[in-house]
């Protein structure tokens, strides 16, 4: 029996009041995260992946937002926890790494000081020197060479990859249980990306973390994740283990994402399979399945929202939101011998 989840998100809904009306950015997202696991949330801009992550940390609270559902960290409810409790949880138990390491640090303070400040804010009994020593250890742990000297650098003195390492060092400063990495490698070169992904993976294993990796890149997912959630227009449209999602994808949107990748390990196709149209505006969602207007396999059932449930007896944990039968899916997703979304008629 697997251990009870460290983080449990149940039917999370996050809405924002805008001039144009209520934007339901996250619409009924549920998942469990266990210790030692890397869960990837995949989706395009506006799919709700970042809002989901930010809501776990209580970063979306405002007069204009409406948060429903439940986020439980080791059984403790966070959605209605008061600010003092959340402040203790942030950094201490749940830490976050952002996409752009340049704008996530204060440019006028030395990096070591910023990390020491985070430690001292939570651990009043730690002295300045001790906090600095701790920052040096962290720099060493994330592979920053010459750590003793580099803790006294300013953010601008670091390259993008080194800055992202420093960001990870800061996230680890208080030994959190959950690490949320929001597009941690999107701003980095591929050779650096590979190093940072390895680092996140190693830290996850060695320190027994539970990691949520938010990305739009299926290559990054295949390289790092254990389980995957695919999000579209605020909803999870498919979830399963890494192999289930890649080798037996059930939702046409997932097929489309896979088909439109440029792959170096295969002969190049004459034309790149594409998903036509663009993601819907959250203010003007189509009735029923949100992917319907872009889906070539639409049929009479689609104006009704499909539930996120398993339609495969052999894989009860593999869930999707598509009305097609598993047999139809296996047939329709084959485009020119590979998984993809065929061009609309």
């Amino acid at each position, binding site marked *: 029996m697997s251990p009870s989840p460290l983080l449990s998100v149940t039917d999370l809904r996050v809405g924002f009041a805008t001039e144009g009306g209520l934007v339901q950015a996250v619409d009924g997202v549920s998942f469990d995260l266990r210790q030692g696991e890397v869960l990837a949330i995949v989706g395009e801009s506006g799919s709700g992946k970042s809002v989901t992550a930010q809501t776990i940390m209580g970063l979306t609270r405002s007069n204009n937002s409406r948060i429903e559902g439940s986020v439980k960290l080791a059984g403790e409810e966070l959605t209605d926890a008061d600010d003092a409790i959340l402040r203790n949880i942030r950094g201490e138990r749940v830490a976050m790494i952002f996409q752009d390491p340049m704008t996530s640090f204060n440019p006028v303070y030395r990096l070591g000081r910023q990390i020491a400040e985070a430690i001292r804010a939570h651990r009043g009994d730690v002295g300045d020197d001790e906090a600095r020593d701790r920052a040096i250890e962290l720099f060493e742990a994330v592979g920053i060479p010459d750590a003793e000297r580099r803790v006294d650098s300013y953010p601008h003195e670091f390259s993008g990859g080194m800055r992202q390492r420093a960001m990870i060092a800061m996230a680890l400063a208080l030994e959190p249980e959950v690490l949320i990495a929001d597009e941690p490698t999107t701003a980095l070169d591929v*050779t650096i990306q590979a190093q940072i992904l390895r680092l996140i993976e190693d830290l996850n294993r060695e320190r027994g973390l539970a990691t949520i990796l938010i990305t739009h890149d299926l290559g990054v997912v295949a390289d790092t994740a254990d389980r995957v959630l695919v999000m579209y227009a605020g909803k999870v449209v498919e979830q399963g283990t890494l192999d289930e999602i890649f080798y037996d994808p059930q939702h046409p949107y997932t097929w489309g994402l896979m088909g439109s990748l*440029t792959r170096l390990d295969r002969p190049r196709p004459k034309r790149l399979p594409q998903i036509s149209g663009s993601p819907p505006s959250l203010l003007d969602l189509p009735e029923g399945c949100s992917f319907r207007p872009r889906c070539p396999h639409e049929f009479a059932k689609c104006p009704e929202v499909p539930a996120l449930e398993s339609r495969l007896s052999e894989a009860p944990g593999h869930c999707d939101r598509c009305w097609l039968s598993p047999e139809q899916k296996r047939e329709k997703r084959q485009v020119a011998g590979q998984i993809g979304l065929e061009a609309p008629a």
Partner: protein
Amino acid sequence: MANGEPLLEVTDLVKHFPIKSGILIDRTVDQVRAVDGISFTIPRGETLGLVGESGSGKSTACRAILQLMKPTSGSVRFEGEEIAGYSRRQMRPLRRQMQMIFQDPYASLNPRKRIGQIVGDPLARQKVASGSDLRKRVQELLVRVGLGPEHYNRFPHEFSGGQRQRIGIARALALAPKLVICDEPVSALDVSIQAQIINLLDDLQDEFGLTYLFVAHDIGVVRHISDRIAVMHDGRIVEQGTADQVCEHPKDDYTKKLLSAVPIPDPRESRARREATAAG
């Protein structure tokens, strides 16, 4: 001229930036060798992919080719004509034939101008069309890149990233250029939209016989669209060849490193590669 003849020939192109020091008298103490002697030729109707990581000099190379920056030395021949060192005035008639598509569709469109003005501006400036003729030509262009004639009076903020990139493409094509330099044209776009834009660029190339210099850091995208690829590293081209040669049988160590860092979107192959690296 027929396809296959060189449209753009770049020979030993160099762009160095001086590092200056001193309070009253500036002394040049060193040089940043952003582009350090690159050479390539693009035959008419073909696509050369220029791939490299940030800081490799690919964007500087584009700017030096278009004479948006004066090259330090070297030769840039466009249809046989030496243009390196041309002044703005000398370049003006040539601008019509060499256009550029930019990376960031949010920053490259003036937010206060309507789409019709943005796309029509090159036509008006080069005095190619005006009045109702201009409007008609702009609307045709919008339709050709997958937008609608009704978008003529809209503002950039009303469009998504992918649509904005289509507007940028329409603007680049307005003057029926021969060479289009695409500087990271899809890297700011979502995956599902990237494929649309790449396919559009492919179609436009076939239709108008365009020649592309396609600059990107994503070697998968570059391989898909290019006939030939040049790999840039620290201001130099370390390897060039046909797209399949470079990607399947790379010779240079840096090219190999670049290729092996690209994640494979296939868990089994990804695991196999990692085990191979761990064992080796």
